[in-house]
């Protein structure tokens, strides 16, 4: 029985945690979720590709008002990870417009979501300012 599970199936854990995408074999469009066919070219053949773990912040918002149960504030962002757009939170940084800026360099990090009754820990991901 595994002691850790990824928050989402496109997060690969291990020594070098990273994201993977389903890449359309014919047009190279990348998708993080399961697709019946490619949204760009309708191709049906996909292969797994690794996504770079560094990127720049292309857009962000500091959410201070969210649905019930969602802790605030947090920074939601769109990261350009070496050519692939990724959605994720910016963590390990003050959620203020002074600290979070457009174009800033970030890197992927993992974070614990807690353990379930069987002692299995769920691991999520976010991005922190690049060192």
């Amino acid at each position, binding site marked *: 029985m595994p002691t850790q*599970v*990824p*928050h*989402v*199936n*496109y997060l690969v854990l291990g020594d070098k945690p990273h994201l993977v995408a389903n890449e359309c074999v014919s047009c190279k*469009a*990348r*998708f*993080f*979720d*399961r697709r019946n066919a490619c*949204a*760009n070219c309708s191709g049906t053949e996909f292969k797994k590709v690794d996504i770079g773990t560094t990127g720049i*912040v*292309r*857009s*962000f*918002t*500091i*959410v*201070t*008002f*969210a*649905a*019930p*149960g*969602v*802790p*605030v504030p*947090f920074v*939601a*962002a*769109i990261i350009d990870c070496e050519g*692939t*757009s*990724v*959605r*994720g*939170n910016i963590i390990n940084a003050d959620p203020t*417009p002074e600290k979070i800026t*457009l*174009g800033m360099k970030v890197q992927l990090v993992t974070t614990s*979501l*807690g353990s*379930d*009754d*069987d002692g*299995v820990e*769920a691991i*999520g*991901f976010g991005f922190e300012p690049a060192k």
Partner: protein
Amino acid sequence: MAADDIYILGIYMTKFGKHTDKDVVDLASEAVLAALKDGGVTMKDMGIMAAGCLMGQGSIGQMIQKQVGQTGIPVYNVSNACATGATALRTAIMAVKAGECDMGLAVGVEKLAGVGLLGGGGRPKSDSNKWSPSGRFGAVAPTDGRIGTDTMPGTFAQVGMEYGHKYGGATFELFARISEKNHSHSTLNPLAAYSKAMSKDEIMNDIMISYPNTRPMCSANCDGAAAAVVVSGTKLKTLSLEQQRRAIKVSASILTSDPYQEACQVLPDVNTLTRIAAKQAYEQSGVSPQDLSLIELHDCFATAELVHYDNLMLCPEGGAVDFFNSGATWRTGSSPVNVSGGLESKGHPIAATGIANIWEVCHHLRGEAGPRQIEGAKVGLAHVIGLGSACGIHVLEKSAL
């Protein structure tokens, strides 16, 4: 008037706001009966009805008919997020254009007062006791708030910030000043949910919802309905001169969905489908962006208004910040945008919005807008975006009579 032209014959919007004593059917019925009266026609003249109520049941059209006239005509209940009203109107226009009937009715209604935050599924008090993957991402726990945000204010905040990353100059203060403009415009609109001027500082110091959108920079959830009667050019010729004089020509009626773009899986792309719709609308109507006397665009958030200046080609590509700073989009400017007060102050009863913005434009083209009249208005554009996405654009022109 050419035989195959389409005209708005009658149109109406209810007061937007809190209608505690009316349900959606009451509000929609008020709009339908008044739109018919405005056009000088009755339910018996209608050959088709298209209706939308995004948060309601599927058969809103039939429910309204029970209150205004069950004539047996086909009803199309439509749903297209915030573009639902425009979709209903387009459905009626298509039926008339196809020659299936010579008059059609479109209605949109919503009760949203006090609904609060839209988007974002929320989470149970605690995550489940056992991590087990589900859904298309194989997620063991909800993703909203952990992997970005699903809220509307947050999504559209990112839309505006992305524009800033691309072109620069899109500051918190700039977005607040866009909101200041719309709130200022709303003071002249008695049908707006909120009609109080707000200073830039008041807007910036209000409750932050999702940076850079504070509360007054978000569309106002409220109740409201709007309805329109459309007629063919052939039929209009048989009606009275007064009806012909007040009829507004629909020079373009466009609906698009979002074509694939690299980043659309992580942030909805509201730009490409709007640009495509705008291009089609200008081609279909033969109108250029500079010809527009007024523009009602989908300012669901102040951050959205900025990008649509560019998407609707009111300014050169990348030039939206300078365009706003020039004062062009104030009611006194060269391209008045959201003289109704926009969704931020007029309000956004979702399915009504895509017809209410047509009403606003028609009101000016008919010269009936009172104190907020844009003098000499000849042609206007109404735009809506439904996230998911759908874009509706209508270009409207004053009667030649």
